[in-house]
């Protein structure tokens, strides 16, 4: 059963008057509306959604990132319900899908946006509330370059440690040859010559 996002938002605002969250409508047929949460409120909102007995969203099932170089596209997929200022530049976004195993309700979709795509790419980690975020946040850090502040062990997970880019970004350009690695061919060939000197 898909939860009633506006009712949850009302309840959230009663309990946490300082929390910055807004209802976003999904224009597609799935009917999965979302809550856009400001990064500074994210952990408190997650904790409330998990601990409030009437909501009890105890399972963070999916956590992922989205790259939006064009902010207008993001606004078209998560349409503002209340009047808000449109984002000025492209940004990175994390999306969370919460379920309640006891109330059999979900998915409640949370989204959280960074300020831009270059310098300010930090979002607070929710691992202290949902342990299931641990590997998934590492994956989003690895592939999108979102830095999760407060994550206990933020390392690359799928790409190798020496890799420097974030391949799921829309402007990522894959190198021609991933496999290229400088190898000392000449040294090896010289050594082989000395090993078996040419016949006189």
């Amino acid at each position, binding site marked *: 059963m898909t939860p009633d996002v506006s009712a949850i938002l009302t309840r959230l605002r009663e309990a946490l008057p300082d929390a910055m969250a807004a209802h976003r409508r999904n*224009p597609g*047929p799935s009917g*999965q509306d979302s809550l856009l949460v400001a990064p500074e409120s994210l952990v408190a909102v997650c904790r409330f959604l*998990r601990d409030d007995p009437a909501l009890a969203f105890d399972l963070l099932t999916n956590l*992922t990132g989205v790259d939006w170089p064009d902010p207008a596209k993001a606004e078209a997929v998560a349409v503002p319900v209340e009047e808000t200022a449109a984002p000025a530049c492209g940004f990175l976004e994390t999306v969370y899908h919460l379920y309640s195993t006891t109330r059999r309700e979900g998915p409640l979709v949370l989204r959280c946006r960074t300020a831009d795509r270059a310098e300010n790419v930090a979002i607070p980690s929710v691992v202290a509330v*949902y342990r299931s975020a641990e590997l998934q946040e590492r994956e989003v850090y690895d592939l999108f370059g979102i830095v999760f502040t407060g994550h206990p062990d933020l390392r690359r997970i*799928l790409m190798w440690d020496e890799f420097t880019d974030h*391949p799921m970004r829309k402007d990522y350009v894959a190198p021609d040859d991933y496999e290229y690695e400088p190898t000392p061919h000449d040294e090896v060939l010289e050594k082989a010559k000395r090993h078996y000197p040419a016949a006189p």
Partner: protein
Amino acid sequence: MIPDSAISFPPSPNANPALDDDQLLHVSLGPQHPSTHGVFRMNVVLDGETVVSLKPVFGYLHRNHEKIAEGSTYLSSMPFTDRLDYICPLTNNWAYAHAVEKLAGIEVPERAEYIRVITAELTRLINHTAFAGFFMGDMGAWGSALMYAFRERELILDLFEDLTGARMMSNFMRFGGCRNDLPDGWADRAKKYLATFPAFLDELEKFLIGNEILLARTQDIGALPAATLVNGGITGPMLRAAGVAYDLRKARPYGIYDRFKFRIPIGEKGDCYDRFMIRFLEMRESLAILNQALDQLPAGEYIHPKAKIRGFKAPAGEAYAAIEGPKGELGFHLISDGTFTPYRYRIRPPSFINLTLLEDMCLGLDLADVVLILGSVDIVLGEVDR
């Protein structure tokens, strides 16, 4: 519900001075170790035989499936989903088709729903029998149990070959139904085969379940509290073995599972023994579903007559949809900007997320138990690494 204080993390290997003790033994287990179920590595730190730290390392099979799918049309990712969990391609196909149908609001005809349930439950039988064989292999009984399991798997793969043209890489589901109808006599052959399956299960259970080595090696190994598992995102047989009756077929009914009478087996202790047993019990329930589905199978369309195969576009929006895969919740999160390709294509892989608590389950146990615990999680690296 679980308080924050109950959520703890094993420390990062980069910031754990305890691991600098030169009396400790650092073992890199894998990536070509036979018990790692594929190219998977664990950096294990041992004090004698006891595990003091365990960090999984993966990505060896990473091909950035999600990035490739974001540059392809919706349908051209369908054969690629076969390669996620290559033991169970038909459930992967269904999960993806289910998500696209939710994204675009597509109806599925009744007969197609039945075919989907039948193929998915047969896939569950394959997965769980293979699990039993591999798990015994992890315990040292390499070969015999697996061959019993693979004998049955071959017969089910024969059915799949008849139906989809391929034994493993099925590419069978379409948005709005299935690729083709059941061939003539297929349902009867499936029924005839399934009539022999309970005898196989009885035989395998007789061989394995009372086995003294199995009891000694698996009981009270690797258990965690149910609340920790839910918080860690663990789903599927791993979660149900710990006593949480959470099965997506009942908890978030999809397809036509509400028409069948079946039970959700749950375990009591959540140790490796319960995880092993729960799969046997689930196979019995899958058999019940299969028999009902094959009996009720209606005539009709196998794909919605208006389903669009070529030039398919989804309206702008997003959708998350998941099914109960044999290994846990297999979900797809799709964002469409109204074009021919998905703007965002995300797989929620049960194998990957079920590894979150691997270290917690292994700490303080012996290295030999690590191998069993990893086996009991039931991972496929094609899905972990994507």
